[in-house]
């Protein structure tokens, strides 16, 4: 019964899936000999060889483009991009090729690709190493976007992503990598893409979040008075979104706070608030509140915690919607 952190759980999922299916391969900068910048792919090259765990040149467009070529010709590539900021050079390949191949070929050519990307702030890294671009890739059609917050969800979601016939961006919150451990089942299981998780059930207010801020929200809950009953939802999949779960919850509570690290404007909070006013309008007791990063560049570490939606800001927002 191993207690694993996020890094170990993802490593385990990769190893098990590579064992199970010889078409699965890992590519990226320093993923082999070095085991990846965050050591997520540690030991895989030793175990599965250089043909399946490939150290690539420093070339994100090449890594993702080559992975697409592999995927459309029968392989199941799981490339790693070292930090979310380095998706930039790969953007064209991801959005214009991976995301659109199925449509462009009317279903003849599909892209079973899983792009693993460490994401988010909270580790004292500078900009480009701390961003949260999940809304950008959710906006682009044809790509699925997931972001687990716990080790066991990460394992199940990664297996689901690799087995999914469409491209998936698998965001891994860096802040959680080594900060949280839990029991992760050894056996083969899937966490379905597109299914949110109710972390705590509640009656008074719904808090919706994903990734590292799940833990900030939990910390905020601890600070609230005993008699406040909060339903905390971890989206796990950003796109396609589990509308049923959030709509059902907000119809029950009538109040909602959405929390994310990404900047506010056109972040996923805007999308969620819109869905809720479309589908729960008559149930809402207060405007949906957003607690997010600001519309500014992720600052260097002295100001980082003021940018990130930390527990006090979340608590304040919950109190506000309750008092409305």
């Amino acid at each position: 019964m191993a207690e694993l952190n996020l890094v170990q759980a993802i490593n385990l999922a990769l190893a098990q899936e590579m064992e199970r299916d010889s078409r699965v391969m890992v590519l990226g900068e320093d993923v082999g000999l070095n085991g990846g910048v965050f050591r997520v792919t540690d030991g895989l090259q030793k175990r599965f060889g250089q043909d399946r765990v490939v150290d690539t040149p420093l070339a994100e467009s090449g890594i993702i483009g080559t992975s697409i070529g592999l995927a459309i010709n029968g392989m199941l590539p799981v490339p790693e991009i070292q930090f979310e900021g380095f998706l930039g050079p790969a953007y064209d390949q991801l959005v214009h090729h991976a995301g659109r191949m199925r449509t462009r070929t009317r279903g003849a050519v599909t892209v079973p690709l899983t792009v693993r990307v460490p994401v988010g702030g909270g580790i004292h890294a500078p900009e480009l190493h701390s961003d949260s671009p999940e809304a950008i890739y959710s906006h682009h059609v044809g790509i699925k976007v997931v972001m687990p917050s716990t080790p066991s969800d990460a394992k199940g979601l990664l297996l689901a992503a690799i087995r999914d016939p469409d491209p998936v961006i698998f965001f891994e919150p860096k802040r959680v990598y080594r900060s949280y451990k839990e029991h992760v089942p050894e056996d083969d299981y899937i966490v379905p893409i597109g299914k949110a998780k109710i972390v705590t059930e509640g009656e008074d207010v719904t808090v919706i979040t994903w990734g590292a801020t799940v833990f900030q929200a939990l910390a905020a809950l601890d600070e609230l008075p005993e008699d406040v009953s909060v339903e905390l939802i971890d989206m796990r999949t950003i796109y396609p979104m589990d509308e049923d779960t959030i709509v059902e919850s907000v119809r029950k509570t009538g109040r909602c706070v959405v929390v994310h690290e990404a900047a506010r404007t056109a972040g996923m909070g805007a999308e969620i608030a819109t869905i809720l006013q479309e589908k729960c309008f008559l149930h809402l007791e207060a405007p949906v509140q957003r607690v997010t990063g600001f519309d500014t560049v992720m600052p260097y570490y002295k100001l980082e915690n003021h940018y990130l939606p930390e527990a006090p800001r979340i608590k304040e927002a919950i109190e506000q919607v309750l008092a409305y």
Partner: protein
Amino acid sequence: MAQATTTSANSQATQAGSRLVDSLDNATLLGWLRSMQLIREFETRTQQAYQQAKIGGFCHIYSGQEACAVGTIACTNGDDPVITAYRDHGHALARGMSARACMAEMYGKIDGCAKGKGGSMHMFDKPNHLYGGHGIVGAQTPLGAGLAFAARYEWEVLGTGSKKVCLCYLGDGAVDQGAFHEALNLSALFGLPVIYIIENNGYSMGTAIGRHTANHENLISRGQSYGIHSVRIDGLDIRDVYDQFKPIVDMCREEQKPAFVDLHTYRYQGHSMSDPQKYRTKEEVEQYKSKDSIAALLDHLMNDRQAIDEDGWKAMRDEIRDEVKDSVEFAERAEAPSVEAELYSDVYIFPQPNLSPTREYVHGAKNPLL
């Protein structure tokens, strides 16, 4: 193979026995020695501060590569634009940034060169024509082309400036990026006075050059394939750097065209501060340390030129140690950026309503270097 590709026309001076560098006076070379030692000492202190968790983010140490930045910048004018990647403390200091502004930036303090908002990878010094410090590998190379384009336009079309040359540094890993090839093509096609200086330290993070780039022993063929004058230089000996690089700068300035330099060097420390260095041996590091560029220049200045003696060298090191120590104390003392004024400022010139959902917009402090 490696030997066969080493230069060419610009080492003529050396072959004839009289070196270009020999025409320089002692004071100039002593200046180089000081500059290299300043970088070395600064980086030693930076490492200490990082290990004490005084510096956040990532931190890439320049020790071992000093002759590259100091030797190449010595060949330029003060108003030639310079741009580099994230291993940038050395270039900043060599270009004239104060140790205080550089250290305070890494400490994330308001007196840093970017008000403590950029950190180690983002050293900018506009008055000294240093345009960063960039974190996306390879992304600075088309910017180098643009800096050169503007300089040429200013001189040729507007008639307001003199002929300039842009120095654009990149690592051997950055050679693999598509953006670099676009930059080379643009520069050659448009005749842009930019010198791409590949600080080839043999590794892209943990991947040795032979494992990350094709035909690595003949890197200059990349530049040559675009018709760009391309030269390989030993970057461990600053006198070699000067001898071979100065004529290239002069040529690019005069003829307003690009060049490509494969500058061989070595980094002593890990890629960043958290690097177990499984990819290289201690012996390899020691072997390069035995060819240390500061020691080599010191030896020349002491024994060939009698320009400095042991006492003089000690005095120079003491003075540098004080200067760097002062920069650390300065950074420790300096204020962190204020949340109210700095978290939302410097995104646009005018305040935007969306920037701060919780606070009124306040203008940020003036950049300390401006």
